Protein backbone atom coordinates (compact mmCIF):
# COMPACT_ATOMS: atom_id res chain seq x y z
CA UNK A 1 0.00 0.00 0.00
CA UNK A 2 1.21 3.52 -0.79
CA UNK A 3 1.01 6.43 1.63
CA UNK A 4 -0.39 8.78 -1.01
CA UNK A 5 -3.54 10.82 -0.53
CA UNK A 6 -6.13 10.82 -3.32
CA UNK A 7 -8.86 13.41 -3.82
CA UNK A 8 -11.82 12.98 -6.16
CA UNK A 9 -12.32 16.25 -8.01
CA UNK A 10 -16.02 17.00 -8.25
CA UNK A 11 -17.34 18.92 -11.18
CA UNK A 12 -20.66 19.52 -12.77
CA UNK A 13 -21.52 21.13 -16.09
CA UNK A 14 -17.96 22.26 -16.68
CA UNK A 15 -17.30 23.73 -13.26
CA UNK A 16 -15.17 22.38 -10.45
CA UNK A 17 -17.14 22.32 -7.21
CA UNK A 18 -15.73 24.29 -4.29
CA UNK A 19 -15.60 21.21 -2.05
CA UNK A 20 -12.83 19.87 -4.33
CA UNK A 21 -10.48 22.65 -3.22
CA UNK A 22 -11.44 22.13 0.42
CA UNK A 23 -10.49 18.47 0.03
CA UNK A 24 -7.21 19.38 -1.66
CA UNK A 25 -6.36 21.58 1.32
CA UNK A 26 -7.21 18.75 3.71
CA UNK A 27 -5.33 16.29 1.50
CA UNK A 28 -2.24 18.50 1.59
CA UNK A 29 -2.29 18.34 5.39
CA UNK A 30 -2.57 14.55 5.34
CA UNK A 31 0.17 14.20 2.73
CA UNK A 32 2.39 16.23 5.06
CA UNK A 33 1.60 13.96 7.99
CA UNK A 34 2.26 10.81 5.99
CA UNK A 35 5.22 12.21 4.08
CA UNK A 36 3.57 11.35 0.78
CA UNK A 37 2.18 12.84 -2.39
CA UNK A 38 -1.20 14.39 -3.06
CA UNK A 39 -3.07 13.06 -6.09
CA UNK A 40 -6.18 14.56 -7.61
CA UNK A 41 -8.47 12.31 -9.66
CA UNK A 42 -10.39 13.94 -12.46
CA UNK A 43 -12.96 11.83 -14.26
CA UNK A 44 -14.45 13.47 -17.31
CA UNK A 45 -14.63 13.75 -21.04
CA UNK A 46 -12.38 16.28 -22.74
CA UNK A 47 -12.17 17.98 -19.38
CA UNK A 48 -8.42 18.38 -18.81
CA UNK A 49 -9.01 22.13 -18.80
CA UNK A 50 -10.66 21.83 -15.40
CA UNK A 51 -7.36 20.87 -13.81
CA UNK A 52 -5.52 24.19 -14.20
CA UNK A 53 -5.85 25.57 -10.68
CA UNK A 54 -5.80 22.29 -8.80
CA UNK A 55 -3.20 22.29 -6.04
CA UNK A 56 -1.96 18.68 -6.18
CA UNK A 57 1.35 17.00 -6.87
CA UNK A 58 -0.18 14.96 -9.62
CA UNK A 59 -3.50 14.70 -11.36
CA UNK A 60 -4.81 11.39 -12.64
CA UNK A 61 -6.95 12.14 -15.62
CA UNK A 62 -9.46 9.57 -16.84
CA UNK A 63 -11.16 10.41 -20.09
CA UNK A 64 -14.28 8.65 -21.35
CA UNK A 65 -17.57 9.81 -22.90
CA UNK A 66 -19.46 7.96 -20.16
CA UNK A 67 -17.72 10.15 -17.58
CA UNK A 68 -18.79 13.44 -19.14
CA UNK A 69 -21.25 14.02 -16.32
CA UNK A 70 -21.47 12.24 -13.00
CA UNK A 71 -23.11 8.85 -13.14
CA UNK A 72 -22.74 6.61 -10.12
CA UNK A 73 -22.18 3.32 -11.93
CA UNK A 74 -19.51 4.64 -14.32
CA UNK A 75 -17.73 6.40 -11.46
CA UNK A 76 -17.88 3.28 -9.28
CA UNK A 77 -16.27 1.11 -11.95
CA UNK A 78 -13.56 3.67 -12.62
CA UNK A 79 -12.74 4.51 -9.01
CA UNK A 80 -12.55 0.89 -7.88
CA UNK A 81 -10.06 0.31 -10.71
CA UNK A 82 -7.90 3.24 -9.63
CA UNK A 83 -7.99 2.34 -5.93
CA UNK A 84 -7.18 -1.30 -6.61
CA UNK A 85 -4.19 -0.44 -8.75
CA UNK A 86 -2.85 2.52 -6.70
CA UNK A 87 -3.73 1.40 -3.16
CA UNK A 88 -3.71 4.92 -1.67
CA UNK A 89 -3.50 5.65 2.04
CA UNK A 90 -6.58 7.86 1.98
CA UNK A 91 -9.25 8.73 -0.59
CA UNK A 92 -11.27 11.89 -0.03
CA UNK A 93 -14.75 12.39 -1.47
CA UNK A 94 -17.13 15.29 -0.95
CA UNK A 95 -20.00 14.66 1.41
CA UNK A 96 -22.08 15.90 -1.49
CA UNK A 97 -24.57 14.87 -4.12
CA UNK A 98 -21.63 13.31 -5.98
CA UNK A 99 -19.25 12.02 -3.31
CA UNK A 100 -21.91 10.59 -1.00
CA UNK A 101 -23.47 8.63 -3.86
CA UNK A 102 -20.23 6.86 -4.56
CA UNK A 103 -18.15 6.51 -1.37
CA UNK A 104 -20.39 3.96 0.36
CA UNK A 105 -20.50 1.80 -2.74
CA UNK A 106 -16.69 1.83 -3.11
CA UNK A 107 -16.38 0.95 0.56
CA UNK A 108 -18.61 -2.12 0.24
CA UNK A 109 -17.20 -3.17 -3.12
CA UNK A 110 -13.57 -3.09 -1.97
CA UNK A 111 -14.08 -3.84 1.73
CA UNK A 112 -12.53 -0.54 2.86
CA UNK A 113 -13.36 1.58 5.91
CA UNK A 114 -15.41 4.71 5.32
CA UNK A 115 -15.89 7.70 7.63
CA UNK A 116 -18.39 10.35 6.55
CA UNK A 117 -18.99 14.04 7.25
CA UNK A 118 -15.36 14.69 8.13
CA UNK A 119 -14.80 18.37 8.91
CA UNK A 120 -11.08 18.39 9.60
CA UNK A 121 -8.05 16.28 10.52
CA UNK A 122 -6.13 16.75 13.75
CA UNK A 123 -2.41 17.43 13.61
CA UNK A 124 -1.73 13.75 14.28
CA UNK A 125 -4.01 12.74 11.43
CA UNK A 126 -7.20 11.74 13.21
CA UNK A 127 -10.44 12.51 11.42
CA UNK A 128 -13.11 14.60 13.13
CA UNK A 129 -16.65 14.17 11.81
CA UNK A 130 -19.81 16.02 12.68
CA UNK A 131 -23.00 14.07 13.30
CA UNK A 132 -26.46 14.60 14.76
CA UNK A 133 -27.14 17.87 13.01
CA UNK A 134 -23.72 19.23 13.94
CA UNK A 135 -24.33 18.80 17.66
CA UNK A 136 -21.88 15.93 18.18
CA UNK A 137 -18.36 15.40 16.87
CA UNK A 138 -16.79 11.98 16.42
CA UNK A 139 -13.02 11.64 16.34
CA UNK A 140 -11.28 8.53 15.11
CA UNK A 141 -8.21 6.88 13.68
CA UNK A 142 -7.66 6.09 10.06
CA UNK A 143 -7.63 2.33 9.67
CA UNK A 144 -4.48 0.51 8.66
CA UNK A 145 -5.69 -0.15 5.13
CA UNK A 146 -6.91 2.38 2.58
CA UNK A 147 -9.41 4.68 4.29
CA UNK A 148 -12.23 6.45 2.49
CA UNK A 149 -13.67 9.68 3.84
CA UNK A 150 -16.38 12.08 2.77
CA UNK A 151 -15.75 15.70 3.68
CA UNK A 152 -17.97 18.61 4.62
CA UNK A 153 -16.80 22.19 4.10
CA UNK A 154 -15.87 24.48 6.96
CA UNK A 155 -12.55 23.05 8.12
CA UNK A 156 -10.33 24.37 5.33
CA UNK A 157 -10.26 27.42 3.11
CA UNK A 158 -10.88 26.55 -0.55
CA UNK A 159 -8.11 28.99 -1.62
CA UNK A 160 -5.61 26.66 0.03
CA UNK A 161 -6.56 23.99 -2.49
CA UNK A 162 -5.91 26.27 -5.45
CA UNK A 163 -2.62 26.86 -7.20
CA UNK A 164 -1.27 28.99 -10.02
CA UNK A 165 0.82 26.05 -11.18
CA UNK A 166 -1.15 23.32 -12.90
CA UNK A 167 -0.45 19.83 -11.58
CA UNK A 168 1.45 17.19 -13.51
CA UNK A 169 -1.11 15.25 -15.49
CA UNK A 170 -0.93 11.48 -15.65
CA UNK A 171 -3.46 9.70 -17.85
CA UNK A 172 -5.16 6.63 -16.48
CA UNK A 173 -7.01 4.36 -18.88
CA UNK A 174 -10.61 3.87 -17.96
CA UNK A 175 -11.98 0.38 -17.45
CA UNK A 176 -14.55 -0.98 -19.89
CA UNK A 177 -17.61 1.17 -19.37
CA UNK A 178 -20.30 -0.81 -21.18
CA UNK A 179 -23.81 -1.75 -20.21
CA UNK A 180 -24.12 1.22 -17.92
CA UNK A 181 -27.48 1.54 -16.24
CA UNK A 182 -27.57 5.21 -15.30
CA UNK A 183 -27.98 7.79 -18.06
CA UNK A 184 -28.07 11.54 -17.80
CA UNK A 185 -31.01 12.80 -19.81
CA UNK A 186 -30.75 16.53 -19.23
CA UNK A 187 -30.05 19.25 -16.73
CA UNK A 188 -32.89 21.45 -15.64
CA UNK A 189 -31.63 24.90 -14.67
CA UNK A 190 -33.36 26.76 -11.85
CA UNK A 191 -36.11 29.09 -12.99
CA UNK A 192 -33.99 31.85 -14.41
CA UNK A 193 -36.57 34.58 -14.00
CA UNK A 194 -36.05 34.51 -10.27
CA UNK A 195 -33.32 36.31 -8.36
CA UNK A 196 -29.97 34.55 -8.04
CA UNK A 197 -29.46 34.50 -4.28
CA UNK A 198 -25.81 33.48 -4.64
CA UNK A 199 -25.15 36.94 -6.04
CA UNK A 200 -27.09 38.96 -3.47
CA UNK A 201 -25.22 40.90 -0.82
CA UNK A 202 -27.95 40.96 1.82
CA UNK A 203 -29.94 37.84 2.57
CA UNK A 204 -32.74 37.32 5.05
CA UNK A 205 -33.05 33.59 5.49
CA UNK A 206 -35.94 31.84 7.19
CA UNK A 207 -36.12 28.39 8.75
CA UNK A 208 -38.57 26.19 10.58
CA UNK A 209 -38.80 28.82 13.34
CA UNK A 210 -40.85 31.09 11.09
CA UNK A 211 -43.72 28.68 11.79
CA UNK A 212 -46.21 29.75 9.15
CA UNK A 213 -46.20 30.91 5.57
CA UNK A 214 -47.95 34.00 6.71
CA UNK A 215 -45.01 34.98 8.90
CA UNK A 216 -42.80 35.21 5.81
CA UNK A 217 -44.16 38.73 5.60
CA UNK A 218 -41.92 39.65 8.54
CA UNK A 219 -38.86 38.50 6.63
CA UNK A 220 -40.07 40.31 3.50
CA UNK A 221 -40.45 43.52 5.47
CA UNK A 222 -36.93 43.30 6.81
CA UNK A 223 -35.61 42.43 3.35
CA UNK A 224 -37.37 45.41 1.80
CA UNK A 225 -36.05 47.68 4.45
CA UNK A 226 -32.45 46.52 4.06
CA UNK A 227 -32.61 46.14 0.30
CA UNK A 228 -32.07 42.41 0.61
CA UNK A 229 -33.73 39.24 -0.55
CA UNK A 230 -35.56 36.47 1.31
CA UNK A 231 -34.28 32.93 1.10
CA UNK A 232 -34.87 29.83 3.20
CA UNK A 233 -33.66 26.53 4.54
CA UNK A 234 -35.01 23.18 3.40
CA UNK A 235 -38.13 22.80 5.60
CA UNK A 236 -39.56 26.09 4.35
CA UNK A 237 -38.93 25.21 0.70
CA UNK A 238 -40.41 21.72 1.19
CA UNK A 239 -43.62 23.35 2.37
CA UNK A 240 -43.76 25.20 -0.93
CA UNK A 241 -43.68 28.59 0.78
CA UNK A 242 -40.82 29.84 -1.41
CA UNK A 243 -39.56 28.60 -4.80
CA UNK A 244 -36.59 26.21 -4.88
CA UNK A 245 -34.47 29.00 -6.36
CA UNK A 246 -34.43 30.48 -2.85
CA UNK A 247 -33.10 27.36 -1.18
CA UNK A 248 -29.85 27.81 0.74
CA UNK A 249 -28.17 24.51 1.53
CA UNK A 250 -26.44 21.45 0.27
CA UNK A 251 -28.79 20.91 -2.64
CA UNK A 252 -29.66 24.56 -2.96
CA UNK A 253 -27.40 27.52 -3.41
CA UNK A 254 -24.19 28.32 -1.65
CA UNK A 255 -24.28 31.99 -0.77
CA UNK A 256 -21.69 34.59 0.17
CA UNK A 257 -23.47 37.81 1.06
CA UNK A 258 -22.07 40.65 3.12
CA UNK A 259 -24.76 40.07 5.70
CA UNK A 260 -26.74 36.87 6.21
CA UNK A 261 -29.57 37.09 8.71
CA UNK A 262 -30.82 33.68 9.83
CA UNK A 263 -34.33 33.81 11.28
CA UNK A 264 -35.34 30.70 13.19
CA UNK A 265 -32.70 28.54 11.51
CA UNK A 266 -31.15 25.89 13.75
CA UNK A 267 -28.10 25.42 11.57
CA UNK A 268 -28.08 21.85 10.31
CA UNK A 269 -24.77 21.03 8.58
CA UNK A 270 -26.47 20.91 5.17
CA UNK A 271 -27.44 24.52 5.68
CA UNK A 272 -24.29 25.71 7.41
CA UNK A 273 -22.00 24.46 4.66
CA UNK A 274 -23.77 26.72 2.20
CA UNK A 275 -23.38 29.93 4.21
CA UNK A 276 -19.82 29.77 5.47
CA UNK A 277 -18.79 32.15 2.70
CA UNK A 278 -20.89 34.93 4.25
CA UNK A 279 -19.00 37.92 5.62
CA UNK A 280 -21.27 38.41 8.62
CA UNK A 281 -23.88 35.99 9.90
CA UNK A 282 -26.53 37.21 12.32
CA UNK A 283 -28.51 34.40 13.93
CA UNK A 284 -31.84 34.96 15.64
CA UNK A 285 -33.05 31.82 17.37
CA UNK A 286 -34.72 31.19 20.73
CA UNK A 287 -32.78 27.97 21.24
CA UNK A 288 -29.48 28.90 22.90
CA UNK A 289 -28.02 25.54 21.85
CA UNK A 290 -28.81 25.95 18.15
CA UNK A 291 -25.64 25.07 16.18
CA UNK A 292 -26.14 28.19 14.04
CA UNK A 293 -24.65 30.19 16.95
CA UNK A 294 -21.39 28.30 16.54
CA UNK A 295 -20.78 29.80 13.14
CA UNK A 296 -22.62 33.11 13.41
CA UNK A 297 -20.80 36.37 14.00
CA UNK A 298 -23.62 37.77 16.08
CA UNK A 299 -26.46 35.96 17.75
CA UNK A 300 -29.51 36.71 19.82
CA UNK A 301 -31.92 34.43 21.61
CA UNK A 302 -34.74 36.90 21.48
CA UNK A 303 -37.95 35.83 19.77
CA UNK A 304 -37.88 36.89 16.15
CA UNK A 305 -41.56 37.75 16.40
CA UNK A 306 -40.74 40.37 19.03
CA UNK A 307 -37.69 41.69 17.26
CA UNK A 308 -38.34 42.08 13.56
CA UNK A 309 -40.95 44.84 13.60
CA UNK A 310 -38.80 46.91 15.98
CA UNK A 311 -35.75 46.25 13.85
CA UNK A 312 -37.50 47.34 10.66
CA UNK A 313 -38.59 50.56 12.35
CA UNK A 314 -35.06 51.28 13.53
CA UNK A 315 -33.56 50.52 10.14
CA UNK A 316 -36.02 52.89 8.51
CA UNK A 317 -35.20 55.57 11.08
CA UNK A 318 -31.47 55.09 10.54
CA UNK A 319 -31.91 55.37 6.78
CA UNK A 320 -33.89 58.56 7.09
CA UNK A 321 -31.48 60.28 9.49
Amino acid sequence: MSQDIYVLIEHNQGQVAEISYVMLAAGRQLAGIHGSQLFAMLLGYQAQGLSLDIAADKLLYIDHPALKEFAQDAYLLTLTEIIKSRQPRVVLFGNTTIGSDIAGAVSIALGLDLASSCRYFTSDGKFVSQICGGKIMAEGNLSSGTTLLTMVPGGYKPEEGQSEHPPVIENFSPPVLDNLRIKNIKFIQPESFDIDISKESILISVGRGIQTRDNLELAENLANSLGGVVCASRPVIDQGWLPTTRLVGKSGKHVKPKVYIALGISGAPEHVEAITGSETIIAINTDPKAPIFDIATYGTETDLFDLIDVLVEKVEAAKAS
Partner: protein
Amino acid sequence: MKIVVFVKLVPDLVEELTVDPGGTTLDTTWLRMIINEFDDHAVEQAILLKEKTSTQVIVIAPDFDGVDEVLFTACAKGADQIIKLTGDFSSINNHALARAVASRIKILQPDLVLTGVQANNDIDGSIGPALAACLNQPFVGYVSGVTLEDNTAIVQKEYPGGVIAEMSITLPAVLGIQAAEQPPRYVAVSKVRQVMKTSNIDEQPLDELDNSGFPEVTRMFQSETSAHAEMITGSPDEIADRLVSVFKEKGILQRTNR
Protein backbone atom coordinates in the same frame (compact mmCIF):
# COMPACT_ATOMS: atom_id res chain seq x y z
CA MET B 1 -43.77 -3.78 -9.69
CA LYS B 2 -42.46 -4.12 -6.20
CA ILE B 3 -40.86 -1.36 -4.11
CA VAL B 4 -39.00 -1.92 -0.88
CA VAL B 5 -38.52 1.07 1.41
CA PHE B 6 -35.80 0.81 4.02
CA VAL B 7 -36.47 2.95 7.08
CA LYS B 8 -34.49 3.50 10.25
CA LEU B 9 -34.85 5.45 13.45
CA VAL B 10 -32.34 8.12 14.44
CA PRO B 11 -31.75 10.24 17.54
CA ASP B 12 -34.37 12.98 17.92
CA LEU B 13 -32.48 16.24 18.07
CA VAL B 14 -35.23 17.86 20.15
CA GLU B 15 -33.57 16.28 23.18
CA GLU B 16 -30.12 17.29 24.25
CA LEU B 17 -27.61 14.72 23.15
CA THR B 18 -24.89 13.60 25.51
CA VAL B 19 -21.96 11.27 25.12
CA ASP B 20 -21.83 7.95 26.92
CA PRO B 21 -19.36 7.85 29.88
CA GLY B 22 -17.25 5.50 27.75
CA GLY B 23 -16.73 8.48 25.48
CA THR B 24 -17.14 6.82 22.10
CA THR B 25 -20.90 6.55 21.61
CA LEU B 26 -24.04 8.54 22.35
CA ASP B 27 -25.59 8.15 25.78
CA THR B 28 -28.80 6.26 25.13
CA THR B 29 -30.38 6.74 28.57
CA TRP B 30 -32.51 9.68 27.46
CA LEU B 31 -32.18 9.15 23.75
CA ARG B 32 -35.47 9.51 21.97
CA MET B 33 -35.66 7.87 18.58
CA ILE B 34 -37.58 9.25 15.65
CA ILE B 35 -38.03 8.16 12.05
CA ASN B 36 -35.22 9.55 9.91
CA GLU B 37 -37.02 12.38 8.14
CA PHE B 38 -35.58 11.45 4.73
CA ASP B 39 -36.85 7.89 5.22
CA ASP B 40 -40.26 9.40 5.91
CA HIS B 41 -40.00 11.08 2.51
CA ALA B 42 -38.96 7.75 0.97
CA VAL B 43 -42.12 6.12 2.34
CA GLU B 44 -44.20 8.98 0.96
CA GLN B 45 -42.56 8.69 -2.46
CA ALA B 46 -43.27 4.95 -2.53
CA ILE B 47 -46.92 5.52 -1.62
CA LEU B 48 -47.23 8.20 -4.33
CA LEU B 49 -45.82 5.71 -6.85
CA LYS B 50 -48.26 3.09 -5.62
CA GLU B 51 -51.15 5.48 -6.15
CA LYS B 52 -50.03 6.18 -9.71
CA THR B 53 -48.95 2.75 -10.86
CA SER B 54 -50.35 0.20 -8.39
CA THR B 55 -47.02 -1.10 -7.25
CA GLN B 56 -46.59 -3.23 -4.16
CA VAL B 57 -44.89 -1.40 -1.27
CA ILE B 58 -42.92 -3.23 1.43
CA VAL B 59 -41.42 -1.25 4.30
CA ILE B 60 -38.49 -2.73 6.24
CA ALA B 61 -37.01 -1.35 9.44
CA PRO B 62 -34.56 -2.63 12.03
CA ASP B 63 -35.91 -3.02 15.54
CA PHE B 64 -35.36 0.19 17.48
CA ASP B 65 -37.50 1.60 20.27
CA GLY B 66 -40.63 2.99 18.61
CA VAL B 67 -40.28 1.09 15.34
CA ASP B 68 -43.68 -0.62 15.59
CA GLU B 69 -45.46 2.70 15.44
CA VAL B 70 -43.35 3.79 12.49
CA LEU B 71 -44.20 0.58 10.62
CA PHE B 72 -47.91 0.71 11.44
CA THR B 73 -48.00 4.35 10.34
CA ALA B 74 -46.43 3.35 7.01
CA CYS B 75 -49.05 0.66 6.73
CA ALA B 76 -51.83 3.14 7.44
CA LYS B 77 -50.45 5.31 4.66
CA GLY B 78 -50.74 2.41 2.24
CA ALA B 79 -47.78 0.05 2.60
CA ASP B 80 -48.76 -3.53 1.74
CA GLN B 81 -46.29 -5.31 3.96
CA ILE B 82 -44.24 -4.25 6.99
CA ILE B 83 -41.15 -6.10 8.13
CA LYS B 84 -39.21 -5.65 11.35
CA LEU B 85 -35.67 -6.94 11.44
CA THR B 86 -34.82 -8.17 14.92
CA GLY B 87 -31.47 -8.73 16.54
CA ASP B 88 -28.94 -6.95 18.71
CA PHE B 89 -28.47 -3.50 17.21
CA SER B 90 -26.68 -1.93 20.16
CA SER B 91 -23.54 -1.31 18.12
CA ILE B 92 -24.98 -1.48 14.64
CA ASN B 93 -23.56 0.58 11.80
CA ASN B 94 -24.64 1.28 8.24
CA HIS B 95 -22.22 -1.21 6.74
CA ALA B 96 -23.61 -4.06 8.82
CA LEU B 97 -27.18 -2.91 8.24
CA ALA B 98 -26.66 -2.65 4.50
CA ARG B 99 -25.31 -6.20 4.28
CA ALA B 100 -28.06 -7.60 6.47
CA VAL B 101 -30.87 -5.75 4.71
CA ALA B 102 -29.45 -6.68 1.31
CA SER B 103 -29.72 -10.36 2.23
CA ARG B 104 -33.45 -9.83 2.90
CA ILE B 105 -33.98 -7.74 -0.19
CA LYS B 106 -32.41 -10.43 -2.37
CA ILE B 107 -35.21 -12.74 -1.25
CA LEU B 108 -37.93 -10.15 -1.90
CA GLN B 109 -36.53 -9.25 -5.35
CA PRO B 110 -38.01 -5.78 -5.65
CA ASP B 111 -37.73 -3.65 -8.78
CA LEU B 112 -36.84 -0.60 -6.75
CA VAL B 113 -35.44 0.12 -3.30
CA LEU B 114 -36.02 3.55 -1.76
CA THR B 115 -34.39 4.91 1.35
CA GLY B 116 -33.59 8.31 2.84
CA VAL B 117 -30.55 9.93 1.26
CA GLN B 118 -28.89 10.38 4.65
CA ALA B 119 -29.49 10.16 8.38
CA ASN B 120 -28.24 12.39 11.17
CA ASN B 121 -26.25 9.60 12.84
CA ASP B 122 -24.42 8.35 9.75
CA ILE B 123 -20.74 7.98 10.61
CA ASP B 124 -19.78 5.41 8.00
CA GLY B 125 -21.54 6.94 5.01
CA SER B 126 -25.21 6.82 4.18
CA ILE B 127 -26.89 3.48 3.83
CA GLY B 128 -28.24 3.77 0.28
CA PRO B 129 -25.02 3.45 -1.75
CA ALA B 130 -23.77 0.65 0.54
CA LEU B 131 -27.03 -1.21 0.07
CA ALA B 132 -26.83 -0.76 -3.69
CA ALA B 133 -23.28 -2.11 -3.74
CA CYS B 134 -24.30 -5.16 -1.70
CA LEU B 135 -27.06 -5.79 -4.24
CA ASN B 136 -24.76 -4.98 -7.15
CA GLN B 137 -27.27 -2.38 -8.32
CA PRO B 138 -26.88 1.23 -9.43
CA PHE B 139 -27.62 4.02 -6.96
CA VAL B 140 -28.82 7.57 -7.39
CA GLY B 141 -29.07 9.81 -4.33
CA TYR B 142 -30.54 13.26 -3.60
CA VAL B 143 -33.63 12.31 -5.55
CA SER B 144 -36.68 14.56 -5.38
CA GLY B 145 -38.93 13.00 -7.99
CA VAL B 146 -39.47 9.52 -9.46
CA THR B 147 -41.47 8.24 -12.40
CA LEU B 148 -41.62 4.57 -13.34
CA GLU B 149 -41.71 3.39 -16.96
CA ASP B 150 -41.46 -0.34 -17.74
CA ASN B 151 -38.06 -1.38 -16.40
CA THR B 152 -36.76 2.16 -16.02
CA ALA B 153 -37.00 4.83 -13.38
CA ILE B 154 -36.80 8.45 -14.45
CA VAL B 155 -35.53 10.47 -11.52
CA GLN B 156 -34.78 14.05 -10.64
CA LYS B 157 -31.46 14.32 -8.85
CA GLU B 158 -30.68 17.56 -7.07
CA TYR B 159 -27.35 19.28 -7.55
CA PRO B 160 -26.10 22.37 -5.75
CA GLY B 161 -27.33 25.66 -7.10
CA GLY B 162 -30.87 24.47 -7.68
CA VAL B 163 -29.79 22.50 -10.76
CA ILE B 164 -31.67 19.28 -11.30
CA ALA B 165 -30.40 16.39 -13.39
CA GLU B 166 -32.98 14.20 -15.01
CA MET B 167 -31.62 10.67 -15.18
CA SER B 168 -32.85 7.31 -16.28
CA ILE B 169 -31.90 4.18 -14.37
CA THR B 170 -32.44 0.66 -15.54
CA LEU B 171 -34.16 -1.32 -12.79
CA PRO B 172 -33.57 -2.90 -10.36
CA ALA B 173 -31.94 0.02 -8.57
CA VAL B 174 -31.61 1.81 -5.26
CA LEU B 175 -32.57 5.47 -4.81
CA GLY B 176 -31.68 7.81 -1.97
CA ILE B 177 -34.63 10.12 -1.45
CA GLN B 178 -34.02 13.74 -0.56
CA ALA B 179 -37.65 14.84 -0.76
CA ALA B 180 -40.87 13.19 -1.91
CA GLU B 181 -42.88 15.00 -4.55
CA GLN B 182 -45.12 16.21 -1.76
CA PRO B 183 -44.50 16.45 2.00
CA PRO B 184 -45.27 13.26 3.95
CA ARG B 185 -49.01 12.99 4.57
CA TYR B 186 -50.78 12.91 7.89
CA VAL B 187 -52.49 9.78 9.11
CA ALA B 188 -55.07 10.05 11.84
CA VAL B 189 -54.16 8.26 15.05
CA SER B 190 -57.41 6.31 14.85
CA LYS B 191 -56.36 4.98 11.46
CA VAL B 192 -53.00 3.85 12.84
CA ARG B 193 -54.74 2.25 15.81
CA GLN B 194 -57.08 0.45 13.42
CA VAL B 195 -54.12 -0.83 11.44
CA MET B 196 -52.49 -2.05 14.66
CA LYS B 197 -55.51 -4.27 15.20
CA THR B 198 -55.81 -5.58 11.67
CA SER B 199 -52.23 -5.83 10.37
CA ASN B 200 -49.22 -7.79 11.39
CA ILE B 201 -45.60 -6.87 11.53
CA ASP B 202 -43.57 -9.57 9.90
CA GLU B 203 -40.64 -10.16 12.27
CA GLN B 204 -37.48 -11.47 10.72
CA PRO B 205 -34.41 -12.19 12.83
CA LEU B 206 -31.14 -11.04 11.37
CA ASP B 207 -28.24 -13.40 11.13
CA GLU B 208 -24.76 -12.59 12.30
CA LEU B 209 -23.92 -8.95 11.67
CA ASP B 210 -20.75 -7.99 9.85
CA ASN B 211 -19.66 -4.60 11.21
CA SER B 212 -16.53 -4.24 9.09
CA GLY B 213 -16.05 -1.02 7.18
CA PHE B 214 -16.91 1.13 10.17
CA PRO B 215 -14.09 3.42 11.22
CA GLU B 216 -12.61 3.29 14.70
CA VAL B 217 -14.11 6.12 16.77
CA THR B 218 -11.83 6.99 19.67
CA ARG B 219 -13.69 9.95 21.09
CA MET B 220 -17.08 11.58 20.82
CA PHE B 221 -17.82 15.05 22.15
CA GLN B 222 -20.34 17.85 21.97
CA SER B 223 -19.54 20.43 19.32
CA GLU B 224 -17.06 22.96 20.60
CA THR B 225 -18.44 26.40 21.08
CA SER B 226 -15.10 28.17 20.96
CA ALA B 227 -16.05 29.98 17.81
CA HIS B 228 -19.37 31.00 19.30
CA ALA B 229 -21.26 34.04 18.08
CA GLU B 230 -21.11 37.27 20.05
CA MET B 231 -24.47 37.12 21.79
CA ILE B 232 -26.56 40.26 21.89
CA THR B 233 -28.88 40.47 24.87
CA GLY B 234 -31.41 42.96 26.16
CA SER B 235 -34.86 44.12 25.17
CA PRO B 236 -35.92 43.85 21.51
CA ASP B 237 -35.34 47.58 21.37
CA GLU B 238 -31.75 47.34 22.56
CA ILE B 239 -31.03 44.37 20.33
CA ALA B 240 -32.43 46.19 17.31
CA ASP B 241 -30.19 49.21 18.10
CA ARG B 242 -27.13 47.00 18.23
CA LEU B 243 -28.04 45.30 14.96
CA VAL B 244 -28.56 48.64 13.25
CA SER B 245 -25.06 49.65 14.30
CA VAL B 246 -23.76 46.36 12.86
CA PHE B 247 -25.54 47.19 9.58
CA LYS B 248 -23.90 50.62 9.63
CA GLU B 249 -20.44 49.14 10.24
CA LYS B 250 -20.99 46.82 7.31
CA GLY B 251 -22.09 49.75 5.19
CA ILE B 252 -25.31 48.17 4.08
CA LEU B 253 -27.67 50.92 5.18
CA GLN B 254 -28.52 53.06 2.22
CA ARG B 255 -29.91 56.47 3.04
CA THR B 256 -33.31 57.16 1.64
CA ASN B 257 -33.26 60.25 -0.51
CA ARG B 258 -36.06 62.52 0.42
